[in-house]
């Protein structure tokens, strides 16, 4: 798969096993992903370890998010009321297409044919930039990682550090080519300086900005964005028009709840005690920041997730990416294999649900269910539980006659009867004979199984069945116990 020519759209992406096979062959990518995830994981572990009340914060975070989802309509209306009172304009979108139409119309109404953008996974989810481009609007990504992705004609592979699959030499090549800087060095400092120069002119000139949101504060109508570089502050402060697009799940009941979220998010996301910059603003403030402020509240199948009593905890996600860094699958494949801007464990449960299981059905299987994601999740989303729930839904969706369901039904019949079970064991020992290869120690291994069973031997060898079962041995040993 060449990421340069595709967008990460679950509707058109190859299945996870197919895409993963390709990315696993890219040793440079694997090296980059392994390095980056290891660094963040270690940083996270250090700053989480210094918080004696971390588990209490997680529990409060979980309860706040659950309470929000239980009362989502109430808090969205409260946010709308307070934001409007403070001079903001709130728009609603049922799906991504509608959200894109609204944003495009708002940009046009602002009189600008260019926008500066803060990194926003929500806009990545709906591929906003393509729509803007088609409408003749040039979008400049201003987050360093998003800039690397945009200039490299690439796709994000991580929620928080979307360019973590690129190393400094690769980034230098992109900047040399796209910024026309043949002499550019490869020190991270050189690269950051180049981005500063490249973007400053745009910050000072472009009059319209598009952002996502970390939190929409219902109680005050305020919006909170956390970031590192200051590009967010530039976009939020300097333009005349600011358009914030947010999933309906981003609402937070009260200002006070920030005391929990602003502790959980930075430590989980980047391993920092606090983000270098947090911005909170409410509507429009005379003489400080944009004169026109719009918020687009987007559903895009979030209410479908909400309607599933077991899957709805997925919406509690605060997009920290800790589960991605901790996941042994993600750490091998990187993010692109997931065929969605939401990769890793959270992507494996969020993407199929946002697609209402019409697409991305292989993602719930992209996990060994080891539970590392659950352990690091700052709001205690039980990702393995949701993965199993979704696997069940995928199987059910295929109907009662699909091979997996039939195989399980057969296995159930065999396990219910001792004689059938014994017969199956004998049959198995007989049937495996032609498939066994002996290793140097005389142990037998099976490297290939036919049909559906081949899923197991695709990635590992199976040991031959023992010559006799425990029961056979027990019966043979007789009454003297030898």
């Amino acid at each position, binding site marked *: 798969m060449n990421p340069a020519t595709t967008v990460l759209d679950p509707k058109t992406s190859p299945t996870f096993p197919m895409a993963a096979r390709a990315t696993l062959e890219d040793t440079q990518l694997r090296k980059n992903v392994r390095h980056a995830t290891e660094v963040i994981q270690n940083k996270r572990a250090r700053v989480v370890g210094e918080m004696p009340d971390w588990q209490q914060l997680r529990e409060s975070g979980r309860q706040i998010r659950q309470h929000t989802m239980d009362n989502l309509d*109430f808090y969205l209306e409260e946010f709308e009321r307070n934001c409007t009172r403070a001079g903001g304009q709130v728009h609603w979108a049922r799906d991504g297409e509608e959200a894109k139409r*609204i944003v495009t119309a708002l940009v046009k109404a602002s009189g600008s044919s260019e926008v500066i953008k803060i990194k926003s996974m929500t806009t990545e989810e709906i591929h906003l930039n393509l729509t803007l481009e088609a409408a003749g609007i040039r979008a400049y990504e201003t987050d360093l990682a998003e800039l690397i992705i945009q200039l490299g004609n690439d796709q994000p592979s991580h929620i928080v550090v979307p360019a973590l699959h690129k190393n400094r030499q690769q980034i230098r090549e992109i900047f040399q080519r796209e910024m026309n800087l043949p002499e550019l060095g490869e020190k991270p400092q050189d690269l950051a300086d180049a981005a500063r120069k490249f973007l400053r002119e745009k910050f000072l000139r472009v009059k319209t900005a598009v952002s996502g949101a970390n939190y929409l504060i219902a109680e005050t109508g305020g919006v909170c964005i956390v970031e590192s*570089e200051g590009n967010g502050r530039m976009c*939020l402060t300097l333009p005349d028009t600011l358009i914030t697009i947010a999933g309906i799940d981003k609402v937070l009941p009260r*200002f006070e709840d920030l005391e929990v979220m602003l502790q959980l998010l930075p430590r989980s996301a980047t391993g920092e005690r606090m983000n270098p910059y*947090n911005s909170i603003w409410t509507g429009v403030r005379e003489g400080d920041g944009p004169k026109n402020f719009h918020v687009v509240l987007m559903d895009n199948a979030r209410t479908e997730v909400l309607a599933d009593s077991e899957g*709805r905890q997925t919406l509690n996600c605060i997009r920290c990416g800790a589960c991605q860094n901790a996941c042994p699958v993600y750490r091998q494949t990187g993010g692109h294999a997931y065929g969605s801007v939401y990769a890793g464990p959270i992507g494996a449960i969020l993407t199929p649900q946002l697609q209402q299981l019409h697409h991305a059905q292989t993602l719930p299987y992209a996990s060994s269910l080891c539970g590392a994601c659950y352990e690091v999740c700052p709001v205690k989303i039980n990702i393995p539980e949701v993965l199993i729930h979704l696997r069940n839904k995928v199987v059910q969706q295929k109907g009662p006659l699909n091979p997996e369901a039939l195989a399980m039904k057969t296995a159930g019949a065999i396990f219910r009867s001792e004689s059938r079970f014994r017969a199956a064991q004998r049959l198995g020992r007989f049937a495996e004979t032609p498939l066994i290869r002996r290793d140097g120690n005389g142990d037998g291994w099976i490297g290939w199984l036919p049909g559906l069973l081949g899923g197991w031997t695709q990635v590992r060898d199976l040991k031959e069945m023992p010559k006799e079962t425990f029961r056979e041995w027990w019966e043979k040993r007789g009454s003297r116990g030898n």
Partner: protein
Amino acid sequence: MATEVNGGIDSSVARTEVLRRIRAANGRPVEGANVAEQWSGIQREYQRSATRSREEILDLLEDRLHDYDANVVRTDESGIAATVAKLLTERGRRKIVIPPGLNPAWLPEGFDFVVDEGAPSAELDGFEGVMTASTSAIAITGSVILQNVPGQGRRAISLIPDYHLCFVRVEDVVETVPEAIAGLKERSILPTTFFAGPSATADIEMTRIKGVHGPRFLDIILVG
């Protein structure tokens, strides 16, 4: 579908539909009074007040700020102007923008202090630095908080110049995040910025690089 009304957008149909879907998913109507009661029932057993002594808190803040490559100087009220003069001289910065309402007694002679009058961004780019007071600071995270009030000013002035000299009063330093949020509650709708050290990124191989778009150089004067 969103329709154009007077150059604006009418999304009332979408609004009704999204709210209907949420109510259908949650399966019950929500009563305001119940929501408030439920919210109060959220368990909050995390640390919400200080556990350290005042001196330990100040040391911790200094430590955290150093961690982020900020320079920290402590002085009392009477020493402010002299400390400012020393820092600006060391940094080689003369032309400094200041917000309205900054205490004039803090401004030493021999520098070009210009009070912000809402100049366009490009003009702010011409300043060598900015000097502001602050609302509060959080020791445990090394964060300083600015709001749009006299002495701190609008957000753009503490963003565009490449150097920020910021005053933090020791009485405004708290230990924990919850204490800081509680302190902001009354004025929570003011434009508010938290910063922890100079601008930074870790987007290239997870190496923390100082200075991308915000001020690359930061001095903190801890007063009191």
